[in-house]
């Protein structure tokens, strides 16, 4: 197969009227790749302050049928989960990412919530995961895979609940890329999921249906404690997932 490889590369070079790139040109191109220079970034989110970005994120997410519940503190997360499940007539049973950041929430105060911590399996109805960031620009969540964050949780169950801290909201995709690079010295996680609303299709007569193959419902529990803490210094976005 390296024969095909060489033939394709040779044809490309021939069409460009040159041989392999000079060392200097290759160095310049390599510099372009590693500099991570941003192209034009829309002002929509970048022009806002942090609170404005959180509000924009919520508005954009709700526009695409994501539901958002704002809670004041980490302590209120389990209750918000239980309330949401009850309001949707769902059983108080969920499969949760085995991620230590989710240990920060007082699950034992809500013993009626049956929680399994694992990857999702066929038949799981509700999942709960953390996320790395949320992108205000389009109401998009950014989730990364890893031993503690199996990707199946994002797609198999009918209902996907995501816990998001307000400090994790960033303006644009490029801010998200910076967080990915900061979280991992080399390369990317196996999977980075940018999720904007529940699964949908318009394949039959252009009429949008939710829940084509992935979740029918996407629910975000937005923890705002950094804002009420009001100590002036907002936590670094994605902070508690960093360094892994």
């Amino acid at each position, binding site marked *: 197969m390296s024969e095909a490889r060489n033939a394709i590369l040779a044809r*490309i070079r021939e069409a460009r009227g040159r041989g392999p790139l000079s060392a200097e040109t290759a160095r310049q191109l390599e510099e372009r*790749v590693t500099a991570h220079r941003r192209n034009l970034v829309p002002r929509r989110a970048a022009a806002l302050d942090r609170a404005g970005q959180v509000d924009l994120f919520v508005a954009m997410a709700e526009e695409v049928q994501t539901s958002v519940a704002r809670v004041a503190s980490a302590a209120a997360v389990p209750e918000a989960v239980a309330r949401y499940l009850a309001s949707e007539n769902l059983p108080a049973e969920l499969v949760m990412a085995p991620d230590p950041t989710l240990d920060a929430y007082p699950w034992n105060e809500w013993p009626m919530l049956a929680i399994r911590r694992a990857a999702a399996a066929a038949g799981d109805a509700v999942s709960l995961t953390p996320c790395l960031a949320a992108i205000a620009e389009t109401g998009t969540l950014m989730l990364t895979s890893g031993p503690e964050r*199996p990707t199946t949780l994002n797609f198999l169950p009918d209902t996907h609940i995501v816990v998001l801290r307000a400090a994790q909201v960033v303006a644009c995709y490029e801010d998200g890329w910076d967080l990915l690079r900061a979280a991992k010295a080399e390369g990317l996680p196996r999977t980075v999921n940018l999720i904007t*609303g529940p699964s949908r299709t318009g394949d039959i007569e252009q009429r949008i249906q939710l829940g084509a193959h992935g979740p029918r419902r996407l629910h975000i529990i937005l923890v705002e404690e950094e804002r009420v803490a009001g100590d002036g210094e907002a936590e670094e976005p994605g902070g508690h997932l960093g360094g892994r």
Partner: protein
Amino acid sequence: MQPTSHLFRENSRAELANGTLQAALGMAKTGFPLRRQAAVARLPEFEALREAGRAIKDHVLDNLDFYLERYERHVVAAGGQVHWARTAEEARDRIVEICRSVGAKTVAKGKSMVAEEIALNDHLEKNGIAPIETDLGEYIIQLRHEPPSHIIAPAMHLLKGQVADTFRAAHRDLDPARPLDEPRTLCDEAREVLRPRFLAADVGITGANFLVAETGSGIIVTNEGNGDLTQTLPRVHIVMTSIEKVVPTLEDAATLLRLLARSATGQEFSSYTTISTGPRRPGDRDGPEQYHVVLLDNGRSAMLGTEFQDMLRCIRCSACMNHCPVYAAIGGHAYGWVYPGPMGAVLTPTLIGLAEAGHLPNASTFCGRCESVCPVKIPLPKMMRHWREREFAQRLSPPVYRGGLRLWGWVARRPALYRAMTGITARAMGLVGGRRGRFRSLPLASGWSLVRDMPAPQGRTFHSLWAERQKRRPAP
């Protein structure tokens, strides 16, 4: 699939008379363009982003060898493998080899136009491997043994009743009493049938919208989530893609992603944009054990440095066909191969030859809407014109057509004669047709006047009116 592009005229005539197709097209005609327009209006930077998108793609095409090699190095560094394929045949063979190496019996497939281009499903079946299309539209047309009629909405040519009939015929366990009247119930039926197949599939094949040289990642953009189940659940993930999809960095991908969904469906962003890099990592509880990329050329490198190079910027959004009056009238199947609409009219002759696909670049009124909505500013009408020139130069068009063109060319190069002849003709036609104001039929052009009337000239030519107007105009 066996192309029928050479039968374009016959195909179109049949499609114009096809009532269900016309009803389905009627529903699609306004949906996509209106949604795109609304999304573009909300983003003041959209025009500037188009220019940035074009610049990124042009930069990649100038240095394609560098970015492909860099991409490959990073795929390998992440534990994946890259298989280069010059032709459709090489790509198909590699995929079958990979499937065989793991003893695969079933393959789950996300939507991939490159897989359509290489007719992958037929080849898998011939080798005893069952492909299961999982995108709802692709699944429907797979059951019906039809090709896609649109690059992002493959079953756009069907009405819900046809989909219901298809499911009743194919799903043997389906309770006849179960209502399948609405898109909702049809969607649920497909979801139920396909879920166990995802879980049982040995190999998952997806396409890629972008390949990132910086990280060795593939990016897919979907709404249903089928592409994600396809690449997460089976033991092996194969990315079937082509060489022009590489971009330098995640930042460059972000710019193109901002253009893609808005141009395609008018969404701000698709539900799922997924960046995958290599196989599962140590400790991961899910994800594929093997990660393969099949990188197809199939005539693309031969477009570099030619008048068709700009076509390699295409990000397959479908805006051109969504805004094309010809596509809106006849749908995608009439084009006779995988890629319909204006992008298909330019790309198809490159991939299957001008002798087969010569009609397609002629199927345009040159209204220019395709170019004006293209997110990477591909000059589609100009390239269709290049194909027409080649068709003429290679003597592929019928003699009458060539003779007519040659005659017109001869006259048009003699302005005095041209003006005299058009002046006389316009006056004569004005006299004859003046009372009715139109001609129901024209001698030597009955094919043209079969479906439309020719408005009668008012007696003056454009040239003479223009000259008069210029004279009347006050000097600046």
